[in-house]
């Protein structure tokens, strides 16, 4: 027991709550990527401008979640990948830092492939409706 706080933090994550947080985060990302697609399509952005809008909107969504939902401490609400694997493997001896800063950032920032495809779909749909047809 070299670092009591870290191992304690790894065990204090309650799996159903973590799952619920992850689900909420996925929904937020999905909705924000949908709206980003709508905006990109209606504005008629093409090529890199559209993907840039997607990137900016995801960053903005992550920032909002960071400030509003996590109150600046994402590590308290979602485990980073290494923390999750430690909880799943049940060893309880992960090197997860328990200070609550910077641990959950990757989860906030990663948009996920599904949402990227959703963005492309909605973008194409609205671009087609607004700018290609009539």
């Amino acid at each position, binding site marked *: *027991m070299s670092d*009591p706080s870290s*191992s*304690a933090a790894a*065990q204090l994550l309650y799996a159903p709550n973590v*799952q619920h947080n992850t*689900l909420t985060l*996925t*929904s937020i990302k*999905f*909705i924000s*990527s*949908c709206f980003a697609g709508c905006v*990109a*399509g209606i504005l*008629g*952005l*093409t*090529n890199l401008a*559209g*993907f840039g809008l997607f990137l900016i909107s995801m960053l903005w969504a992550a920032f909002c979640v960071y400030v509003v939902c996590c109150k600046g401490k994402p590590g308290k609400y979602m485990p980073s990948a290494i923390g999750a694997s430690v909880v799943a493997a*049940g*060893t*309880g*001896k992960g090197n997860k830092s328990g200070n609550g800063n910077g641990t959950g950032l990757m989860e906030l920032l990663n948009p996920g492939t*599904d*949402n990227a*495809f*959703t*963005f*492309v*779909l*909605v*973008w*194409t*749909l609205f*671009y*087609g*409706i607004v*700018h*290609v*047809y*009539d």
Partner: protein
Amino acid sequence: MSSPAVSLYLDPQIRDWVLFPITLVMILVGILRHYVVLLLQSSPKKLPKAAIREQRALARSQILRATSANSSIPPTFYRSISIHLAAAFDAGTYLKDGPPKGDAPSTPPNPMSDPAAMDGMMAGMKTQMVMMVPQMVIMGWINFFFQGFVLIKLPFPLTLGFKSMLQRGIETPDMDVRWVSSLSWYFLNFFGLNGLYRLILGSDNSAADSSQTMMASPFAGAGGQPGQPQDYVKLFKAEKDNLAFAEGTYSWMGDDVETRLLRKYGKL
């Protein structure tokens, strides 16, 4: 980045009778598939008491050693539980078929002969079929009715390699790759609707992971069903060793608690 010279004028009827129907049909078929899979799933069979005891003993030991580095169980109790479990694992008390007799080599049961495992495999196959068939049907439908014209323009450029795939059936060699046929719109829907299914059907729905299973080999999922027989004799032996290791890392969270408390309030 092509020149903005060419712009096609697409009939709004195409939008109303091809673009929207394909999207709507794909969403509805996804929802339908979810409920069909729910209907097909047979309720899990009741396990006999001995089998549950076997699994629970393993789970109990895993919980014990997962928390051993910062355990809330005092040392005496921890040791007694650990020793009791280790002895039981060693003797094979919790094994479903009783302690192993003699030292006959235990052979894992053949999954084909075990009816329970067979049922699990059949359920997996059924689920896979429900995943595959609607995709085939929709693809056939689109290929039959909506082939041979341009449906929509992608807002981003693609390389010429996509031309043969995305403009199949449209014999215009000079057209920009960004104009694509209805089959490409189908694929866009196919990959893009997963998030929507997750939102409206919940996280563990059976519609969303269709593309992932399609990407993998269609029958790969059938092999790794949870009904896989496990050799509990070996598992128990490994668990016994793990318990012994965990005992080495054990420490009680209440160690020196009085000193820590006094130090926290500055009395020491």
